[in-house]
């Protein structure tokens, strides 16, 4: 509460600046309050009663409170933008005249154009967004991602993109600039977190329409009261009518609507995700199909050797030893896991014997291994690669080994065949290594939650269908796409969208770009290529593909918060009627004072209490609108029942208590 008070006071200057009616016109509900407040101000000057002045002051406060909500939400982004801005202030660039081989010249970073090539060395700041075209460097991207561990950027491949404002820690790279000044990633981030680029989202617009129509209805309902009361004699005073109108129009949601939207974007930023538009955040809530890459998202990035099956009647210990030998040179996590596995079972774990020669993995052989000094050759690779090698050396892969491979595949594993060619002998398969995909802990529960929310998960993998099916079953995803090519992905997205489902996916490679653009929510990894980042509508600065699930949650939370506060705001009106109508009409028809169920002190105190409640409820709900309604994945029916109970029923009851409590204080004022 004290922190709220602090931030409210801090946001006060901005809130007061927003009292300008030209600004308020964009929120029609609050604009109506402004007109009402202006009217009562004039009336108070002529009237002069404490009641009139009190109502006037609280009407102005209603607008200020509404502005505070927006100002606080915007203020959060401003602080973030400030630190981002610092990164680009002093940048100069070493541009190469005439491309990569030209001479250097020093220019301001702001003068760089797409296609320029700059050189960046250790200790320098990268002057603009671009792709590394030559060299490898470690880069500190903490200015953008907040992550202090440096990352490697290198020419070619999917790790070539660099962001302006980040700094090179080691080595020297040539960077081809891809963005225009003022349109760099950091520039976009700044405008996004500041809310400058914020456009109203479709749901927000639709909700705005409903609020305007409601406001019109209440204008009519209140506006005709003077006519309807003619039959009874004295119509109520204008101040009373204005007070009733302000109480009835949906000021609460009207005041908080834009703050909710800004806060939703901000929540994403706190998760280190940048949404390029509010529309994307909203779309995330509507997603009904999630495409998740298997590796790194559903399973741990690395496969682990689980066991080694001896084939061809060899000796178990020798097979293990040879499998280990073949992997010693293999520095991939898979290779290391073979060594680790064998080290756990065998006592004799020698290093590579003298005279042995490492045979690294190449794209041609698709095998790795070792050639021993005596001429023995040990190879390890996928069954098809090993079979080819066996054929070349006069051997063959027996069917029993193929059957073993298939059985490992159908368990969701990856088989690696180990083969040996003795000196001047025929090569033969001696064992099959079972590499296992390890499903990340907790994934099954998350997929169950997603299913409850009505979201289908599809696992995308390059594995063969057998392997994919087994892993899909183990992880608990609804469907899988095996041996997926970028075209397959694209086709799947189109097919889902044809069926009216919205699709979310992550991607980092250039070949992901078309699918990222096609998906309703495309989250590009920050480590990915510029093309991918350009195509997606969100960028995950942590490059954590699992975060897609959090993003969906944030989208839903945004929509729920909006719906909940709308319901609350409308439900509030019942109590306000019960406060104001008896107060307004009891002088005409004393019997109507029986509707004064709250036993409010006097007509003046009742009306003033309702107005005060109406203003204070905005302040009271600011934390909720910024934090969002608590969202736990659950079935829609349960979710709806819970929220209807809290915000619907609660919205009916809360103001009865609140107005009564305020009345107990207000009645102490003189003249009430």
């Amino acid at each position, binding site marked *: 509460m004290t922190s709220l008070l602090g931030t409210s006071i801090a946001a006060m200057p901005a809130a007061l600046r927003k009292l300008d009616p030209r600004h308020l016109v964009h929120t029609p509900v609050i604009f109506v309050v402004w007109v009402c407040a202006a009217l009562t101000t004039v009336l108070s000057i002529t009237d002069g009663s404490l009641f009139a002045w009190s109502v006037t002051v609280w009407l102005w406060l209603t607008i200020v409170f509404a502005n505070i909500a927006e100002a606080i939400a915007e203020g959060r982004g401003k602080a973030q933008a400030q630190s981002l801005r610092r990164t680009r202030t002093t940048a100069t660039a070493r541009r190469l005249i005439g491309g990569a081989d030209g001479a250097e010249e020093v220019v301001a970073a702001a003068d760089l154009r797409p296609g320029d090539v700059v050189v960046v060395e250790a200790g320098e700041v990268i002057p603009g967004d671009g792709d590394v075209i030559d060299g490898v460097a470690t880069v500190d991207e903490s200015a953008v991602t907040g992550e202090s561990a440096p990352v490697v950027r290198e020419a070619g491949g999917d790790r070539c993109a660099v962001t302006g404002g980040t700094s090179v820690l080691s080595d020297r790279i040539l960077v081809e600039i891809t963005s225009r000044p003022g349109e760099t990633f950091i520039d976009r981030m700044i405008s996004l977190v500041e809310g400058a680029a914020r456009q109203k989202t*479709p*749901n927000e617009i*639709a*909700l705005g*329409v*409903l609020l305007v*129509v409601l406001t*019109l*209805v209440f204008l*009519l*309902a*209140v506006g*005709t*009261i003077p*006519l*309807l009361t*003619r*039959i*009874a004699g004295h119509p109520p005073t204008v101040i009373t009518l204005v007070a009733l109108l302000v109480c*009835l129009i949906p000021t609460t949601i009207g005041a908080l609507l834009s703050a909710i939207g800004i806060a939703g974007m901000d929540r994403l930023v706190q998760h280190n995700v940048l949404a390029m538009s509010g529309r994307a955040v*909203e779309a995330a*809530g*509507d997603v*009904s*199909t999630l495409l998740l890459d298997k590796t790194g998202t559903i399973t741990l990035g690395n496969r682990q050797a689980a066991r080694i099956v001896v084939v061809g009647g060899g000796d178990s210990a020798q097979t293990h030893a040879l499998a280990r030998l073949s992997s010693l040179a293999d520095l991939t996590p898979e290779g290391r896991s073979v060594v680790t596995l064998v080290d756990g079972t065998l006592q004799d774990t020698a290093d590579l014997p003298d005279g042995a020669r490492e045979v690294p993995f190449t794209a041609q052989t698709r095998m790795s291994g070792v050639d021993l000094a005596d001429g023995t050759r040990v190879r390890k690779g996928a069954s098809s690669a090993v079979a080819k090698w066996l054929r070349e050396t006069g051997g063959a892969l027996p069917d029993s080994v193929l059957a073993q491979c298939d059985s490992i595949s159908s368990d969701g594993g990856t088989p690696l065949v180990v083969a040996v060619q003795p000196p001047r002998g025929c090569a033969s398969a001696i064992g099959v290594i079972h590499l296992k995909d390890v499903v990340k802990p907790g994934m099954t529960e998350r997929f169950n939650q997603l299913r409850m*929310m*009505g979201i*289908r998960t599809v696992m995308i993998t390059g594995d063969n269908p057998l392997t994919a099916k087994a892993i899909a079953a183990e992880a608990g995803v609804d469907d899988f796409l095996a041996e997926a090519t970028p075209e397959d992905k694209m086709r799947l997205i189109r097919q889902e969208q044809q069926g*009216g*489902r919205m699709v979310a996916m992550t991607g980092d490679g250039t070949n992901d770009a078309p699918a990222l653009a096609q998906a309703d929510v495309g989250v590009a990894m920050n480590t990915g290529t510029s093309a991918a980042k350009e195509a997606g509508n969100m960028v995950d600065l942590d490059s954590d593909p699992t975060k897609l699930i959090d993003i969906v949650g944030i*989208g*839903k*939370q945004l*929509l*729920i918060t*909006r*719906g*909940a506060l*709308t*319901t609350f705001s*409308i*439900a509030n*009106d*019942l109590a306000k*009627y019960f406060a104001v*109508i008896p107060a307004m*009409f009891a002088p*005409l*028809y004393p*019997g*109507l004072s029986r*509707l004064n169920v709250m036993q409010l002190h006097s007509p003046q105190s009742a009306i003033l209490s309702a107005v005060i409640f109406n203003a204070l409820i905005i302040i009271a709900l600011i934390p909720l609108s910024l934090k969002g309604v608590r969202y736990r994945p659950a079935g*829609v*029916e349960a*979710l*709806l*029942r819970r929220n*209807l109970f809290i*915000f*619907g029923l609660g919205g009916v009851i809360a103001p009865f208590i609140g107005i009564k409590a305020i009345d107990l204080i207000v009645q102490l004022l003189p003249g009430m």
Partner: protein
Amino acid sequence: MSDASAGLLTIGLLAAAVAVVHVPLGNYLAWVFTSERDLRVERAIYRVTGINSRSEQSWRTYAVALGAFSAVSVLWLLALVVAQPHLPLARGAEQSLTTAVNTAVSFVTNTNWQDYAGEDGASPVVQTIGLTIQNFVSAAVGLAVALTVIRGLTRSGARTIGNFWVDLTRGVVRVLLPLAFVGALVLLAGGVIENLNAAHTITTIAGRHQTIQGGLVASQEAIKELGTNGGGYFNANSAHPFENPNAVTNLIEIFLMLVIPFSLPRTYGRLVGDRRQGYAVLGFMATLWTGMLAVITWAQVHAASGPLGAMEGVEVRFGVWNSALFANSTTSTSTGAVDSLHESYSAIGGGGALVNMAVGEVSPGGVGSGLYGALVLAILAVFIAGLMVGRTPQLLGKTIGRKEITLAALATVVSPALVLIGTGTALAVPVARGAILAHGPHGLTELLYAFTSAANNNGSAFAGLSATQPFLNLTLAAAMALGRFVPIALILALAGSLAAQRRQGSTEGSMPTHTPLFTGLMVGVAVLVTGLTFLPALALGPLAEAL
């Protein structure tokens, strides 16, 4: 049998009859509007009128056709009423020009507000070839509009929402004519008259002369109730012994009013391929109807001391319970027929009738108009609360976006706006204020009731108000026309917009619209919207009178 037990027996029989009939009738209605074949008589009609029954219309064309048809209907009826003194069987019936305008608009809009006494204002010719025809076609228009909304929800990426002329023809030929025929026979058997006899003049017990008219009553009576029209052959409407002679015909008439509106949710459920959706809407209608019946009956039974409750304005033939049942049904179906005098009802009882209309005639509402009104409320309910499940609101896989919510919200507020503006204006105009009979809050209720009845196309009158004067004739006619056709235009646009959308396949994650929870939500939205709009007016009228 005591009044209460007779009342409870009637309610029980009525509920059972509606429950039994709504299933086959709902299914039949679904077939009528989806069957591929035209009946022989329909083919003849299409051939004569040059209609291509296979062509479909966009919502704009549909709206233009509907508007043109209604405009021509108003002009034809107006000409007929004005010319009736010069037509055969005139029997001295005539109406002033503004009354004639009011009558023409009233019958074309399915309101049947009668600013004339049935016997004296409309000759048998006008009654039969003017008013009765409108009783059929105005109801069929409502049915047609309801069907377009269903088509909007079921079609995917479609540019058309049906063919108005086909919907109109089928509604009359396959639904209203056969049902009205059966209804007329039953009423005839129950004692309702059907003759073309000249008027009898009799001498009353008090020695005064009274002229008793005959007429083709049973045939008009059946469609009067079935089409939720309500325009009586006689001024006394269904309180007249020739229109409604006994408790049995009373029950039949109430049944006829309710049967089509309560069957349409079934039609809806069948056509959208999920009967539970229909049950949710049916539950919404039935909840409101039952709730208001309880309020009105309670108010009437407790209104006056003595064992019979408030008998002022109530026919002894029917008693308090059955009159309350009739009053609740007629005001909740946009019928407007009466078998008792609502003006004489207690403040809460009469207020209940007023509230039934103010809710927008959705419990179960008029033929067709009840369903489309309820579906618009369903859209509002989906929109307000649907966000709370964290998805863009959808109804049956159709997104409720900016366009849809604009149209739905406007369609909902047209009638309340007309009521408040109309009542307010009338109170500001001295000549209209002079028409009010009662003083104080009851006087306001009279005027409020008149405009609520007109703007919601009910047509029941609170009496008391002398509406036969040019100002009220014309303002009420305007309220009827705008209250009928502005929402229809908005709803046709809504249907067009829904039809053009692709139906979203997966709806597991969006808000369920077939559950009791959703039914409760719809009731809540209807009560809240009505309450928030009308509470000040109701407080100054019925509530001020009651408390």
